[in-house]
């Protein structure tokens, strides 16, 4: 955990830590504690008094049929985004890692979307799939398919899933490439000599050896789908039509900022916090184990 040779100084380490600790306390720990406090209180209309209500805010959430719908949307959304971006990036990475001409060019052309903001990715998709100005959106309608993601909830959900996955592929691609490069060539060559074809080699050697990377990305992509895709949804559909694309994080924003329901919004924040803490803990326990055995 620490170096053998160290410096002796009573005050200096605290001074070095001060800025980071100050920011953490003021903007992380204190607000998080506030969220927990507010989640078990209800404020009056003027925000003057608040009353301790145990878990009333939480039961209110879970008995709200809208919230159950939001949970369902979030589940569909995050599972689809994770599955789609993982499988596409694994396919592209394993092809770009093989000995083919122009691999370096392909790599560059596939990693740059990492630079795009989730909201910008959404805007780019809108330019193409908008039913009035987008070329593909108009094409779909021209073929007689009734395409308008601004009115049709399922189409809207499909749009945000595709835009959010599209943006995440490059991130996964980079990590899969790093993982693939760590697989010893000799193992693959041995299998090749034994007569295993590329598909067989992939499933019986590459895929199992990549599992630490895949697992790490699985968690990262879930967190991405839960939190960072707020921009995608806000830019593309604003949670609509109706509540068709309202995920947990969008609802926290909607209830807290737009509808000014502090208790309800905080209770949802606390639920999200619990989900994230569980995901992050799983991730770190796993990473530690991997480091230990390698």
């Amino acid at each position: 955990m620490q170096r053998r040779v160290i410096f002796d100084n009573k005050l200096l380490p605290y001074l070095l830590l001060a800025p980071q600790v100050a920011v953490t306390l003021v903007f992380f720990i204190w607000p998080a504690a506030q969220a927990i406090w507010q989640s078990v209180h209800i404020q009056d209309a003027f925000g003057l008094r608040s009353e301790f209500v145990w878990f009333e805010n939480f039961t209110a959430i879970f008995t709200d049929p809208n919230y159950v719908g939001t949970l369902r949307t979030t589940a569909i959304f995050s599972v689809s985004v994770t599955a789609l971006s993982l499988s596409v990036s694994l396919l592209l990475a394993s092809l770009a890692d093989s000995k083919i001409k122009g691999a370096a060019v392909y790599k560059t052309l596939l990693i740059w979307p990492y630079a795009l903001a989730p909201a910008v990715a959404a805007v780019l998709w809108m330019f193409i799939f908008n039913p009035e100005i987008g070329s593909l959106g108009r094409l779909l309608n021209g073929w007689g398919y009734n395409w308008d993601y601004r009115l049709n909830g399922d189409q809207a959900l499909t749009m945000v899933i595709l835009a959010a996955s599209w943006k995440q592929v490059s991130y996964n691609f980079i990590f899969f490439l790093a993982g693939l490069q760590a697989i010893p060539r000799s193992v693959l060559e041995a299998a090749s000599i034994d007569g295993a074809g590329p598909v067989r080699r992939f499933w019986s050697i590459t895929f199992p050896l990549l599992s630490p990377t895949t697992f790490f990305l699985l968690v990262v992509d879930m967190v991405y789908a839960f939190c960072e895709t707020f921009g995608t949804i806000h830019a593309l559909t604003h949670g609509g039509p109706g509540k068709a694309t309202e995920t947990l994080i969008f609802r926290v924003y909607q209830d807290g900022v737009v509808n000014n329901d502090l208790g309800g919004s905080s209770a949802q924040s606390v639920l999200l916090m619990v989900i994230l803490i569980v995901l992050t803990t799983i991730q770190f326990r796993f990473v530690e184990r991997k480091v230990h055995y390698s």
Partner: protein
Amino acid sequence: MSNPTTGPHTTGPHTAGRRLIDLLPHIVLIVGVLIFAFPIYVTLIGSTWDAATIGRGNLPMIPGGEALNNYGHAWSESHTERAMYTPVRIMMMNSVIMALSIAVGKIAISILSAYAVAFFRFPLRMVFFWMIFITLMLPVEVRIIPTYKVVADLGMIDTYAGLSIPLIASATATLLFRQFFLTIPDELVEAAKIDGAGPVRFFFDILLPLSKTNIAALFVILFIYGWNQYLWPLLVTNSADMETIVIGITKMIGTGEAANDWNLIMATTVLAMLPPVAVVIFMQRWFIKGLVDSEK
């Protein structure tokens, strides 16, 4: 392209089949590249046509002649016949200031705290370490309202400080620097101490130069992280003068009706993508190192 393993005399289904198998990876990769490039291409083309052409939905696939006009207008003008906009020049400056403050701020406070945790032994060391670590689990999205309230109470709404300081605590950067510091040989520290270097001198003369590569790699990914912020700037900026460019685009789009200044929106989108994409492409090696190392 002829296949080297099969001679020119072999013909028939075998050769054709092999050739197809050799080509298949290229086909899949090219389709992948096209799926990522197509939306950008459409946006680039759109930014060279006038609003009416785009609004009618018949955007040609070749560049038009309005590029200078559109980019010039988006860059410096604040309104059109339809609406008021914040000029890109202002939004760009806000985004640059925000992204730079977040990147530099995160690196500065993280390298200092990693130095403290790795090179000193003092009471409560692990408490502080865990406190920093916990921030990983509390992204701004889960503490929106209370964090907003703190920033409002401190009078930091609509300021650059409000945009950047609440985001500069960084567990990943601290962990990365700490990990790197632990690999520095004890002999080096010993030698520096014998030569009479104190902790401050050691930090500036030895540790900082050694950390150059790590700092550059982190800077690239943190700059992009800062540039792409969405929810936080949406909350803490109200005035048009403080708008960042990513927020600006979605404000320009509004409800996405056909009668929009699409030419200006597309030009603004291109300008918003330019800095982070340039950073990724030109600093590719450092960018990948920063990304992969900081997530380990």
